């Protein structure tokens, strides 16, 4: 199985969730993260002192799927997350050796 990790812009979460739903993906996990990359940060001013904040709020979406579905999930997320602007994010594909559903103890593909 594969874990698809996508670092995306926060306001894209709902679109991606729906796009994934449409291709039958009904489970995912979200984390609020901060990203550093090409996208420029912003300036902040507090009593005359200026700071540049480079780390930009992003969301990481993680979806674990069977190998065959991985490519489709990657494509779906890419399409839904794309705005064409710098900072749209990255998708990483990572191998997963096993999955367990805590409730039932099921393992492997039927656990996701």
């Amino acid at each position, binding site marked *: 199985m594969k874990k698809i990790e996508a670092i995306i812009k926060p*306001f894209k979460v709902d679109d991606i969730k729906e796009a994934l739903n449409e291709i039958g993906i009904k489970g995912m996990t979200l984390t609020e993260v901060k990203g550093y990359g090409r996208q420029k940060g*912003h300036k902040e001013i*507090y009593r005359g002192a200026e700071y540049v904040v480079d780390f930009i709020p992003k969301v990481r979406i993680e979806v674990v799927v069977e190998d065959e579905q991985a490519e489709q999930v990657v494509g779906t997320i890419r399409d839904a997350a794309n705005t064409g602007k710098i900072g749209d994010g990255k998708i990483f594909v990572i191998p997963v050796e096993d999955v367990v559903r805590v409730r039932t103890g099921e393992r492997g593909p039927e656990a996701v």
Partner: protein
Amino acid sequence: MNSGDIAWMLCASAMVLFMTPGLAIFYGGLVRSKNVLGTIMHSFIIMGVVSIMWVLYGYTMAFGPDLGGGLLGGAKYLGLSGVGADIGPYSDTIPHILFCAFQLMFAVITPALITGAFAERMKFSAFLAFTILWTTLVYFPVCHWVWGDGGWLGAMGALDFAGGTVIHINSGAAALVCALFLGKRKGYGTDQMHPHNLPLTIFGAGVLWFGWFGFNAGSALAADGTASMALFVTQVAAGTGAVLWIIAEWIYQGKPTTLGAASGAVAGLVAITPAAGFVGPVASIIIGGVAGVLCYGAVVVKGKLGYDDALDVVGIHGVGGLWGALATGLFAAEVYGGVNGLFYGNANQFVIQGIGAVAAIAYSLILTAIILKIVDAVFGLRVDDEEEHQGLDVSQHSEVGYRIV
């Protein structure tokens, strides 16, 4: 001079001023966290801007001797010349400058109320221009009509104890125009725009409630029986508004909410504002209770009409203020404030209240629209899309509300 009256009016002035930071957090908690400072700033900076205007020309426009026709005050008090520690024309027991201070606090909070309508999307420069123009062209005149020496609505006998028409109807009507002119926030109707900090909002409502005693009971301009009754009915109407709003919610949507309780309290406070010196405890239960249900209905309906009055200024201040103005014409009883309303046989008063309300609404709608047109042409009303995504805090103020780890 009466030191008791002065003591009370000093406190009442302070309490009304305190309402504006209270409003700032009431509104601030309701927006998304990326806009919390932008929203708070609206109210906060108005405390500064309007204070300066008031000294320079505001007080005289509102309370200077009538220029004729009851429409505007004359220039006598320009730069507050002649407004000092002595008795003035509006009270025999407190210094003129104290009356002027008390009224300043009302002039501050009224434009601040409107800001809820355009929250989360207005440019700061445009907001400033709008506020200055609106306060000058709408608030000062309407204030004169009702409370100014020779103002036409006051002369006609319109009752507005503490500002149902001057403040709430007036700002509610302006809010409607603002919501329509600015258009919806990006994502309105699809994204979830949950309040980001309800404890802040609820405590803000508590501050408003506290300050409102100064607002309503202070409008007696004296520490007397009228002020005492005004304070009491204020408490009861606020409480009843809170209870009835959550009952309505409970029945209609299945759950009583904390935000509903706070909103209902504000609705009750708004509605009792014009009536405070003219009605008694039992009427205040009705006025507050109806306000709770009515304003709840108004915010539900808004969702269906689809304009984006972000923080429900129309639904709460507009609708609540209108109900209060009319209710004053219904429930006023001679024993409390010297005037009877419809229910005590004086149908005329009800008609007068209606005229006052309609006049204020019409004037406010039209002038607000004109002002927005001008401001839009000069500054542009809205931040651009990228800035709206980022939030007002970063885009307008280069600040971030929270860094809690």
